[in-house]
């Protein structure tokens, strides 16, 4: 089975405290720690496990600049067979549809049975997989937490739905699936693993190589544009307890008692 996994380099939410830049229109990106999108790791792990069972190849692809190469190498260190970087100045400022359009260019160059994405990434829209599937006229399922290969033409797929329930579907191949966290346990990647793939050549493809009209992607093609970032105010905010640990604990216990949390 030939599997393509779409991955993305994103700011790591566990490693960063996000600040705005001085102009207030973007994040202060100078000191941000980046890593591969968490959901994508599960997608790559799932692809590797499928290929281990039924044979085939796992290719990882990303849209980004030269710095995005590091996430491709990381996923190749996990066990993906090859990586492809889709990069062009014309891709900058793409909305979700733009990214899906770029990926479609690559999908059409290859012959993939299964295309995986993470269920969502840093923008938390969860849009690229569903868009890509619709553009290619392939069936799609989101929030996938189980994949069972039935035969060469169909698979059984579990989706996570409300309340922790699981919806089972039968889907014809080829198809596009967006993968939810928890579907597997992504393997650990050590420094040695990364070193092993450090010299592997990663082809870079631009708009011309992919046969993409530059005006259909990037800022030129985007119907949806981010104007600025701001720090949200969702509620009035919590009353913050300060002081020594003993003082805080004494106050906290009083509050919890008054709210019925302690007998």
């Amino acid at each position: 089975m030939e599997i393509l996994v779409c991955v993305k380099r994103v700011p790591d939410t566990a490693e960063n405290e996000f600040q705005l830049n001085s102009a207030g229109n973007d994040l202060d990106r100078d000191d941000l720690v980046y890593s591969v999108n968490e959901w994508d790791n599960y997608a790559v792990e799932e692809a590797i496990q499928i290929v281990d069972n039924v044979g085939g190849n796992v290719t990882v692809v990303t849209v980004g600049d030269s710095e995005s190469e590091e996430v491709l190498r990381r996923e190749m260190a996990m066990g993906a067979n090859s990586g492809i970087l889709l990069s062009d100045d014309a891709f900058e400022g793409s909305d979700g549809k733009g990214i899906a359009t770029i990926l479609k260019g690559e999908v059409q160059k290859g012959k993939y049975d299964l295309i995986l994405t993470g269920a969502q990434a840093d923008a938390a829209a969860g849009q690229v997989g569903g868009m890509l599937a619709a553009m290619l006229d392939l069936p799609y399922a989101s929030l996938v937490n189980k994949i069972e290969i039935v035969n060469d033409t169909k698979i059984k797929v579990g989706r996570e739905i409300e309340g922790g329930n699981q919806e089972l579907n039968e889907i014809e191949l080829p198809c596009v699936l967006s993968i939810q966290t928890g579907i597997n346990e992504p393997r650990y990647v050590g420094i040695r693993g990364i070193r092993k793939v450090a010299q592997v050549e990663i082809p870079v493809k631009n708009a011309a190589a992919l046969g993409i009209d530059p005006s259909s992607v990037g800022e030129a093609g985007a119907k949806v544009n981010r104007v600025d970032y701001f720090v949200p105010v969702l509620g009035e905010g919590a009353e913050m307890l300060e002081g020594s640990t003993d003082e805080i604990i004494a106050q906290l216990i009083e509050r919890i008692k008054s709210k019925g949390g302690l007998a």
Partner: protein
Amino acid sequence: MTQIFVYVTHKAGVADDIASEYIAATKKIDSAATVTAVVTGSGSDLDKVAESLTSKYGEVIKISNEALAYPNAEVIRKALCNVLDKSAILLAPHDTLGMDLCPGLSIKMDSAFAADVVDFEGVDGGKLKLIRQELGGAVSTHVTCDISNGAVITIRPGAFAPVDGAAGGKVTDKSAQAGDLSAKRRFLEVLQAEMGDVDITKSDVLVSVGRGIQEQENIAIAEELAEAMGAVVSCSRPIVDAKWLEKSRQVGTSGKTVKPKVYMAMGISGSFQHMGGIKGNPYIVAVNKNPKAPIFQVADLGIVTDILEFMPALTEAIKSL
């Protein structure tokens, strides 16, 4: 005047809460908007839902077909594409169905797509101004969305206050226009979540742990605090993904919905999916070493410190009461 369609999801003949939340949302897009509800399904349950929505909406479009009995996104997409005009502006919930349906629908309708919108700020020159969040809720963004050739927009459930309508509308049956509803994805069955060893929905006090617990061995620290408080340990999604606790312990839209009196959020950042599982307005205590954690926006009481040091100290203090 803007014409807006709202896709109302429903279960067992009852419309989801989103039906009342669309009213406030559409008014924020255009206070003079004409709003039409759209429902898909089959049988008497669908008839019941469609009829109930006439109290809120001037027009309710009903698309009934046996193939729509279970909400299969691929089938619904085909039906909506055949019934709605390509320039339609359609709202849907950002839930597991909306996420499945809407990105692809926007491509088939050749429309703009915006996901998980938490607020709207009107239309200016064909561009809808909206607010959404990124990076797990750590930052918000203002976004413009060109709706001049149609748009598909998912809104966050619970983000817009419910409003009771007084429309006295009518049901329009467009089932005949649904067209070919064959699909390459076939629904088989729903497997219900397992109950697990402890029912966290029954506890008045929850000690709930998130990523801040750092290691599996540290779960015991939360268990000791819970025992001292007469509480039960629950958790956020990453703890279940790491297999440190059973799925039945997870609070959130993809886990359990809980209604405790006191909710102790220990090292939980507070994503909307997590908060979506907390109902009944409990007293929320948040302890997190990141002062910018979104949980502090919604908690009642906040403490900035490391839970791994704070929980044992609190446990000792409670034991010595």
